């Protein structure tokens, strides 16, 4: 299994830019798509034929936040077996972290910005 497709879900374009720069910096060369909130992410998953291997999910977003997204995602069956979700957030609320790591689809919880260590951790799920 290889890491071929990543979906960034964040309302902050600078962060999305930074994340792409960090991924490139660490030699992660794959398809990277972006969604600006939960609803866009759901739409993307609905629309796409192939599921992303990884979703990097921010929590605080307008329209639909990260937790609402996870709830909706759980209601559908698509991508459940394939996609690994990691939370990437600047929240320093302990409740947020608790709630996020308890979700069965969340594989990791990262403080922004995305770093080399985060990428290493993600890659452990895709080693052959």
């Amino acid at each position: 299994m290889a890491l071929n497709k990543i979906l960034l879900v964040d309302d902050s374009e600078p962060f999305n830019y930074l994340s792409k720069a960090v991924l490139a910096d660490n030699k992660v060369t794959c398809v990277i798509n972006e969604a600006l909130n939960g609803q866009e992410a759901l739409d993307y998953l609905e629309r796409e034929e192939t599921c992303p291997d990884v979703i990097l999910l921010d929590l605080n977003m307008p329209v639909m936040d990260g937790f609402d997204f996870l709830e909706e995602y759980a209601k559908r069956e698509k991508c459940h077996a394939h996609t690994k979700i990691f939370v990437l957030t600047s929240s320093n609320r302990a409740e947020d972290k608790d709630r996020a790591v308890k979700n069965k689809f969340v594989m990791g919880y990262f403080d922004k910005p995305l770093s080399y260590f985060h990428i290493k951790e993600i890659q452990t799920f895709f080693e052959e």
Partner: protein
Amino acid sequence: MQKSLFTRTTIITTAISVAVTGLAIYYQYLNALPASIYTVLLVASYAFDRRSRNVKVAAAVNFLMLTLIIVVGDKFIDNFYAPRWITSTIGYVSVAGLLLYLSGQVSDMRQIKESEERLDLALDGITAGLWDWKMDEGNKRWWSPRYYELLGYAPGEIEPSAHTSQEMTHPVDFELAKHTQHKHLHTASKFEIEQRYKTKSGEYKWFLVNGQTKFDKEGKPVRMIGSIIDIDEKKRNQQLIEQQAALIQIIPNAIIYGDRNLNIYHINETAEELFEIKKHEILGKRITEMLNYEIVGQNPEDVLASMRNNTVWKGEVIFTLRNGKRKSLLASARMVFNAEGEMQGWVGIYNDITVLKNTQERLQLATEGTAAGIWDWPDVSKDEEWWSPRFYQLLGYAEGDLSPALSTFQSLLHPDDVKGTLTLLDEHFKNKKRFEIEYRLRTKSGEYKWFLGSAQAKYNSTGQPERLVGSIIDIDDRKRGAKTIADYAELIRMMPDGVLRVSKSRKIVSANGNVQRLFEATAEEMVGKDFTDFISMNILGTTRDAVWNNIWINGFWRGEVEVTTKSGKQSLLLVNIKATPAEDGEEPTWLGIYTDISMLRINEELNIALHKLEENNKYLEQFAYISSHDIKAPVIALEGLVDLLDKNDGVKDEQKPLLKMIKRTTQQMQRTNQSLNSILKLRKNLTDTGNEGGEPVRLQIILEDVMGTLEPQIAEAGGQLNSDVLEVQHVMFPYMHFKSVMYNLISNAIKYRHPDRALQIDVSAHELYQGVYLFTIQDNGLGIDLNRNKDKVFGIFKRFHDHVEGSGVGLHIVKSIIQAYGGNIKIESEPNKGTKISFTFKSMYPLTNNN
């Protein structure tokens, strides 16, 4: 006596005459007839002789008859053909009989004479008064002079009569006397009675009355003669003796009579009861054989000796009865001696004082309970006194436990009472001022008790005190009781509530200070006035009439009243009223307690405000939190973007310093945000229940943890850390929070070290008292000028040195933590010398001695 003599002689003579006459007739001598006639006559004359006064007549007839027989008898005898010698024999025998008779008569007469003479003597000389009652001579009565004398009269002063006799006879004795006399006159029984006659003086006296009665032929009493003998004294003595005998039997004292050999010959009933012994068991025995006794405080030999001196011995004797019972008896005993001084016996009287003794003991106890302890200071120039046993007892000591002296007394005095007592003593000595003072003395148990102390000095001729005698009386109860009442009165006076008593006619009876304040009037102005003169009221939720009914019907009322004084001061009062029924004809009253709850209302408002404030604070905290979060994200993004720009070399060389400044500003923003965040986190953590930083860990481990991080820095700075925490190292403290305190303080010391000298940090910890520990962290660093910065030291974002990077929240965090755990922190610092921070910290898990 005279009569019986007569009779005997008469019978003998008659018997002989009859016998001789009988013999003559038997021999059929006819001339015996005259002798027979003579005999008959003789018998008849003897019959006459029963009457003594006819004795002489009888004798004369006798003689005549005999002479007749002797002179003319021969002729008759001859005529009857009797031999002469028989006739003669009869004649002589008759003469002999007559002579015999006469001789008897003479003898009798002589005897009578003698008796009469003797009687006369007796009558004159001694006792009896005689009386004579001649029933045959018209009931004529006669009393001898002595008779009169015995009754206190002059002879002949009163006329003896049946009436006077009856008058004189004691009414009680009259019936008996009458009965005895009646019986005597009808059955010839003895007449002898003891009876009382009234004397001239009106007194009754006892007499022994005897009487003899002469009867006529028909047995009719003709004369009664008798005597009276004064037996008054004897009778009285006898009565006394009888009374005494009765008394002895019934007297509540036990009486024992003993003979000269000390053997008991009589005991009374009380003694039987007292000694629980029967009379027959003890009679004839020595008292010592029957009863065990000990004489209290005296030797039995001494007691006997003193009794032999004919004195009455009195004392206390404790008898042990046969059943083991012990009795305390008060005994009086004396020996009885006869005129020659020989001991005749002894008598003892015993009073049971067992009960009395118990009572006495109780009385003594009771007296002791209140009685004074006495002390004597015989020579005021010496520190030596004498204290009575009671004195020691009052203080809880045994006699002699303390050495009695003024100095000892002084040491027992309550410190607050020493001065007053000694001053008064001085006054007493110098100015003879009355010494009476209430003071407290320390008892053996260490408690102080109140005593009333009095003393009186004896002064010498120059007016100098020589000797001081005094007493102490336990007044502790009274004092405490008085104190309690005084306390209550004081309490009412001081009570923050108003206490008001009002009569049913709404007149104020009493008011304490707070009512006075509330009504804006003095007690004098208020008493007797209607309480509504002072205030206007608005009773909340009810009417005045309803309140009034409640008070007088239910006995109480409770409610809230708005009160306005004349000066316009308003207050809200909680009122509790209780009615007191009328006493001793006085008007019923009610007692009201007024609690000013205006403040309560203000408090309520304050609480609401506080609640709002808290909500605001919460909101602000939330706001700060969200702000911090919302700032965090863009700062992080900015930092990342600047880094990216720097790495990508897309910046011209002349722009590089600019980029660097942007980078530093971003970092600063980032750090401030982090500090803010950490404070918010700590606050949340400290106020949260079950906070995360509170897990208890041993100090040793916490310090190792801190040093693990900071040791390299100290080493790098060429410094040294000394610690003195052995005493406390096993005590548990809240891990994260305590670590934060130690970390901040030690890292501050490292950060602000002096550049010119080697860093020296001293850390110490000691137990201040149970469960509270004192920590100090002292360094030799730069120090802070506290004169300028004292108020700011623990403020947020305060930094005193800018050559090193610091967030300015370290000391603020430290203080927050320490205060959250109820400790205190203090800083001492001098610029260029160093800083010493001391703080206290409680451990929830202090060491016990066992671990």
